[in-house]
């Protein structure tokens, strides 16, 4: 971990450890304790928000892996979530499959889709993955819509809560712990993936593909791997989403949802796991904050009908502001804060000629 005061690891063992200083270990322990005790004291609304954050975080981490590290922008995230959700829904309706079948099935579907839609990106650079994933989104949504109309579930597919050995998962608090486990697992997986050979390969190919290839990194393979891993994770998140809401319908997976995920990655800060998490919290909370603000301000009732539009506008404005003024996102702000306190009473002035 690089910070303003320096980098002090001297052995491989030290290097591999996730938390090294005592401060880090204590703050992590306190944070975990807070997370574990929160649901017993918080209101159901906050538990629901927390659940949403955990669920969304998995998808955001997946997108961060592809966009922030492997440098490929994906606009089809909603399509991948839909794929996972519909897999769960279809398997449940047709075969009454339990969760321990649907979850892996979603993962497989995700991987296959990742393979199919990642393939065009091998021959092309930059924008073309964005474009082909856009295609993915529409095609998946179409297939889902077709299934709905053909099978007569025009309002959507309702799912039973998942049950494991007779105990069914329907309580918000129970979901909290399950989703927390999944989110934590996804985070750890991502962190370790990035510290592995694959992660280093991605960092290389993001900086300069030609040089990476010359150094022996199999660029095409790693790009595809990034996309496949990411889509598998996202698909699983979609499956969990279906169970959490007990409902799957095509309308929930709009292009705006894809854009929201992209925003999480940008606002959080490209190239950082912490960024994905911070971005998720920010984007999930934003509509609630907007709602709260419009409720407080003495505006007429007609405004409340426009809440969707207000959300859109505020969202777009926030994204633009971050892109223009804080390209390193929330993580950039966090690092600047950290540096300020670590270096105090000194201050870091950028070198002349640097921005």
């Amino acid at each position, binding site marked *: 971990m690089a910070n303003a005061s320096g980098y002090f690891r001297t052995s491989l063992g030290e290097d591999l450890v996730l938390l090294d200083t005592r401060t880090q270990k204590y703050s992590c322990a306190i944070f975990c304790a807070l997370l574990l005790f929160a649901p017993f004291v918080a209101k159901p609304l906050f538990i629901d928000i927390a659940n949403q954050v955990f669920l969304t975080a998995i998808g955001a981490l997946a997108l961060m892996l592809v966009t922030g590290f492997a440098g490929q922008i994906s606009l089809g995230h909603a399509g991948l979530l839909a794929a996972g959700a519909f897999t769960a829904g279809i398997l449940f309706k047709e075969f009454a499959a339990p969760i321990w079948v649907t979850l892996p099935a979603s993962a497989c579907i995700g991987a296959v889709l990742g393979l199919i839609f990642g393939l065009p990106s091998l021959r092309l650079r930059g924008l073309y993955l964005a474009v082909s994933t856009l295609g993915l989104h529409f095609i998946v949504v179409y297939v889902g819509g077709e299934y709905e109309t053909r099978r007569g579930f025009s309002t959507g597919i309702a799912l039973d809560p998942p049950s494991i050995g007779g105990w069914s998962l329907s309580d918000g608090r129970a979901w909290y712990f399950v989703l927390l486990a999944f989110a934590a697992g996804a985070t750890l997986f991502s962190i370790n993936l990035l510290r592995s050979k694959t992660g280093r390969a991605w960092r290389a190919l993001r900086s300069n593909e030609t040089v990476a290839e010359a150094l022996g990194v199999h660029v095409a393979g790693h790009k595809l791997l990034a996309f496949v891993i990411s889509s598998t994770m996202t698909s699983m998140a979609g499956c969990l989403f279906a169970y959490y809401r007990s409902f799957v319908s095509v309308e929930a997976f709009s292009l705006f949802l894809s854009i929201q995920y992209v925003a999480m990655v940008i606002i959080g800060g490209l190239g950082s796991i912490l960024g994905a998490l911070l971005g998720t919290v920010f984007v999930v909370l934003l509509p609630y904050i907007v709602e709260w603000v419009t409720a407080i301000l003495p505006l007429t009732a007609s405004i409340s009908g426009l809440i969707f539009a207000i959300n859109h506008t505020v969202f777009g404005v926030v994204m633009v502001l971050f892109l223009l003024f804080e390209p390193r996102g929330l993580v950039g702000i966090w690092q600047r804060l950290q540096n300020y306190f670590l270096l105090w009473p000194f201050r870091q002035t950028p*070198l*002349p*000629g*640097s*921005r």
Partner: protein
Amino acid sequence: MDAPETLLSVEKIEVTYHRVVTAVQGVSMTVKRGQIVALLGNNGAGKTTTLRAISGFVGMDDARVSEGSITYKGQRTENRQPHEVTRLGVVLVPERSKVFENLSVAENILAAVPGKKGKSQAAVAYEYFPQLVRLREREAGYLSGGERQMLAIASALVCAPELLLVDELSLGLAPRVVADLIERLQLIRGELGLTIVLVEQNATVALELADYGYVMENGRIVLDGTADRLRSHDDIREFYLGHVQGERRNYRDVKQYRRSRRWYG
């Protein structure tokens, strides 16, 4: 007779790429009106960077002049956009992408924004490079090396330069073609009163043409003087012009090592 005025004055500039790589440090140059000044040095010495610093960087280069100043006719021009510098009269003929590959020769010449002085744009270009007239409809990407260089200089002339910066005139060209180009360049200079800064790896060609020269190594200027003085300088003769005194004995006589020892030791 008045001493010719100083047209361009580069003072202790430092050029930084990507905010971390310093390509050029402490470089100072003076160019007087009517002179031909040569900038010599090997690959990576910083000659092209210096020229580009004078001409201006665009955002995509992620480069800037982080220290020092560049003054042209009394105005500070460092860190300005290339088109502003061009409109002041300082025009660059680049080393690599010097023409618009997918446009025809005629379109290349039309694309250049003409400078303030009198003559109509295309006329200037075709007057000094009549060979381009019959090549008007050909796509620039299909021109030969010599023709491409002619087009590059021609389109630069359209911008009515007072100071012409030429980067690697002879790169990749046969000696006969280079000789033709030099003759043409001297003619243009005489008729239009141009001042020229020439970056060249081929020191023989450069010192033949130039009045004054600067030698760069590793981003700094290590030697400067009139062309005569440089031509007779022992080190230049050995390292750049290829004349060796005595026999070569062992690896210690290798260029790089001896030069480093002599110039930095």
